[in-house]
């Protein structure tokens, strides 16, 4: 196995922990609510998944714990920002700190536990394809779930009334309200669902790729997930590319060193951010940003 292949394999495994929260953030932002608490939802999901996995002995059941814990913090954020009209950024940060504190308190007891992480599933046939097989088809179940989610999101957003409702809520909530729908409810559901996905991202760390719980184990990857959505200008397929880009750079940094290849690691670490910056400049130069309009202002009518 050569270094490039190793980096790509590690990039998909690690990148999935960023991809899932990014997709969740995408859904929330399309409805017009930004969730800076994604890091906290991810952290809560990591602990929720680990705690359930320790208790039940099943990492698969742990995933459900991850969804529940992430969604719980998403619910707090969406209630505060949508129904109580709290500042979205402040509410998101509060959720992050709340999750950081609570997971430290409740997570300490789990640090010394160990679990059997999610098993690696090789897709018959596909995993035998040279290069592509090991990179894409030899992973735990959450990686395959993320593939399915990207496809589903592309279809839902482009082809269905549900996707239209979500995007309309993010652009013109008043119009959605006038049309007889409840934009606030759409936002509440979108953000909570998105936070549940962030929770699965945390589970990919704690019961998937890493297989351990540590306090503050998400180390800022939830914020990267938010940045990836900007990088991808709110398009699911691009979110996937962005998340994997971060994942691959992360893995490549280790792989290059393990091969004794001298690189300027600080430069390597900054590459994804540089790419995000360039992408943002490119997007804004075109004139039309894809950002949902409601992200820039408060919801005026919650009926």
């Amino acid at each position: 196995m050569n270094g490039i292949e190793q980096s790509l394999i590690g990039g998909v495994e690690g990148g999935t922990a960023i991809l899932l929260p990014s997709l969740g953030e995408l859904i929330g932002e399309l409805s017009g609510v930004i969730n800076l608490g994604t890091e906290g939802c991810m952290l809560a999901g990591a602990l929720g998944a680990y705690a359930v996995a320790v208790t039940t002995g099943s990492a698969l059941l742990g995933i459900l714990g991850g969804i529940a814990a992430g969604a719980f913090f998403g619910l707090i954020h969406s209630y505060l920002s949508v129904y109580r009209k709290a500042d979205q950024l402040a509410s998101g940060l509060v959720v992050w700190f709340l999750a950081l504190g609570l997971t430290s308190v409740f997570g300490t007891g789990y640090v010394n536990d160990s679990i059997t992480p999610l098993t690696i599933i090789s897709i018959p046939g596909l995993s035998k394809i040279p290069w592509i097989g090991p990179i894409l088809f030899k992973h735990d179940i959450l990686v395959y779930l993320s593939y399915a989610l990207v496809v589903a999101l592309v279809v839902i957003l482009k082809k269905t009334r549900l996707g239209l409702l979500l995007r309309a809520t993010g652009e013109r909530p008043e119009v959605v309200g006038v049309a007889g729908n409840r934009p606030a409810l759409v936002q509440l559901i979108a953000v909570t669902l998105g936070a549940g996905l962030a929770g699965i991202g945390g589970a990919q760390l704690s019961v998937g790729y890493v297989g351990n719980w540590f306090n503050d184990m998400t180390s800022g990857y939830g914020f990267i997930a938010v940045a990836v959505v900007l990088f991808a200008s709110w398009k699911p397929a691009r979110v996937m590319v962005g998340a994997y880009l971060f994942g691959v750079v992360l893995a490549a940094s280790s792989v290059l060193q393990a091969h004794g290849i001298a690189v300027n690691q600080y430069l390597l670490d900054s590459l994804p951010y540089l790419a995000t910056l360039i992408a943002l400049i490119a997007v804004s130069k075109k004139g039309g940003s894809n950002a949902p309009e409601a992200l820039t202002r408060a919801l005026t009518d919650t009926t």
Partner: protein
Amino acid sequence: MRIGSKLRKIVGLVGASAISMIGLASCGSSSSASGTTTASATPATTVGFIMVGSRSDYGYNQAVYVASQTVAKDMSNVKVITADNIPENDSVTQTMQAMVNSGAKIIFATSYGYFPYAEKFAVSHPSITVLHQGGYLAGKFPPNFGTYWGEAFEPVSLGGMAAGSVTKSNKLGFVYAFPIPQTIQNIDAFELGALSVNPNAKTYVVNTSNWCDPLKQKEAATALLSQGVDVLTQHQDCQATVIGAAKAAGAYVVGYHYDASSLDPSGWLTGSVWNWAPVYTNIIKTVLSGHFAGSIYNTNWVGTFATNNNPLTLAPFGPAVTSTMSTKILAEEAKLKSGSSVFTGPIYCQDGSVLVPAGVTPTYAQINNFSCLVKGVVGTLPQS
């Protein structure tokens, strides 16, 4: 650069204050749980311990926490408060101030990156004694400041011997955090130890730029294992991820900071384990006696095997270490205890230049200036 801490800087005030609030919450909880003081004539002196990571990380911070609780138990005239998960930025200054506000007279700042904050705090608070764990001050010491550490590289080199003796691929892996002097010494000592029993042993190094980022640790361990490494060691604060990766791959492990043999009983070779309680106790006693200024702790104090007070000790051996090998390692330990050095020359850098000339034994100050990896280490230190 750690992503999380970068972002914490961005959120600035909010971040710092909230984190120190979390710190104080844990400070409060642990002081009520453990800071038991028996009724005595003299009021108890409050001692604060600040940790960068979780107090249950199976590693560096757990070792600090366990020792702080031993101090609380054994010293009836001391009340211990602790704060964990305090980042290496001005949060630590706020935490020290908060501890002083709640009565602390002695503060142990136990993470490497706390150094500049701890020293400044000592200068601005002459009535508080501040101790920094692992730092090295080249200049003049304020009368209420000291650093303390152990010659960590001594047990690390013994761990290297164990690694070098069991490896089949002759490839050892070392996951480290930052290219700081302590770490460079440890990597060099590990490789020298391995070479002393296996002239073909090579140590492959990968850094994570973070004391405890499980995802990066996993990436690092995976990269090393795919490269053919069959013994992993580390200089990280939390150990479990790397040990878990080694266990899953059937590789061996040399631990660091804390005896984590229970995580992988069959793969555990040995490790280096902190025993801080005697050091903390002696320092606190010195401060309480009123003779801290000018004492051995008012400098860069270093425990060594030779002086029989190295806070870092060798962990018990795992089943993969044969009795012949363990005898050899213990004999080497005895030699170090009688005054020999890990770094007696000749020692060469990777590029073949001389690090330590033949027959010379470097001083601790010189060892702290080691800036190259020794011959036999594969990989480079990150250049800034």
